[in-house]
């Protein structure tokens, strides 16, 4: 869907096509994402919503045979320009995955993994950063006494919040979330949703979700995808009450998907 250009947009895709080998996974996606808003991407499995998310921090580069056409402009700069280093892009566009994936290291080392790579070596700096990030992810009170313990000993919900804290420690501009609660129980899910609501004050969040209630609860804008196409992109309220496109309505009311 074409949208008016927003002054506070941070990243946008322009006529993006994406291929896995010969398979065309995304067709002509043009989409603006607003600063400090939560944008939800919904649609049935295989509709390309995760693919689009992974385009925004060049995670798709890691897949052999993947090819991108069009532009992804991050603060006006095309991140698919040959001059652009994907490592720099990923430093500024953080990502949280479907399955909690902490490293088999201590909680502290999980948080400080990224900052250490970019050259933060001072121990007190790292400790301060770990504390801030864990507090932002509302995990600090639960783990402040066990920072040296393996992250694998945490529960699934705690692991996922640790992954969020780990992404926040890089001080990204955008946080991408790929179905971050699909592997979690309802209580952990509620905690993460609260967290997202808190985080959007500081960060731009783009979240892929299978759960339409979740999209309705937490997002400001919602994009509906179907077979690689962006069918409708509108304010969440509008999408869920009075969508412009019939297909959207059918999906949301459960008539297909």
């Amino acid at each position, binding site marked *: 869907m074409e949208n008016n250009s927003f002054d506070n947009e941070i990243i946008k895709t322009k006529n993006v096509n994406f291929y896995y080998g010969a398979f065309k996974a995304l067709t002509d996606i043009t989409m603006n994402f607003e600063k400090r808003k939560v944008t939800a991407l919904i649609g049935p499995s295989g509709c390309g919503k995760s693919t689009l998310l992974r385009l925004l921090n060049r995670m798709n580069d890691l897949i052999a045979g993947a090819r991108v056409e069009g532009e992804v402009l991050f603060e006006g700069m095309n991140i698919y320009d040959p001059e652009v*280093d994907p*490592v*720099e892009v990923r430093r500024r566009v953080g990502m949280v995955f479907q399955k909690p994936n902490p490293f088999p290291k201590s909680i502290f080392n999980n948080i400080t993994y990224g900052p250490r*790579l*970019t*050259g933060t070596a001072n121990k007190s700096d790292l400790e301060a950063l770990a504390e801030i990030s864990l507090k932002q992810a509302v995990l600090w009170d639960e783990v402040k006494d066990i920072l040296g313990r393996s992250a694998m000993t945490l529960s699934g919900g705690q692991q996922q919040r640790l992954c969020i804290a780990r992404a926040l420690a890089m001080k990204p501009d955008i946080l991408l979330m790929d179905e971050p609660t699909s592997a979690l129980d309802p209580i952990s899910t509620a905690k993460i949703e609260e967290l997202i609501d808190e985080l959007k004050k500081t960060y731009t969040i783009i979240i892929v979700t299978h759960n339409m209630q979740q999209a309705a609860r937490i997002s400001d804008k919602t994009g509906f995808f179907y077979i690689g196409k962006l069918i409708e992109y509108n304010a969440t309220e509008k999408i869920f009450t009075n969508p412009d496109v019939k297909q959207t309505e059918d999906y949301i009311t459960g008539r297909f998907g």
Partner: protein
Amino acid sequence: MTGQTVSGNMKRRYLKQHLFFGAVRLSAVILTLALGGILFYILVN
């Protein structure tokens, strides 16, 4: 962190990567040469 130090930092990180990849490729080449040498010798004699 200023842009200058960030790019300097990146340069160092990529240098490390180049050195490591070099070492790794070298070991693969050595193995190939060792086997190649032995097979060549066996075939020639």
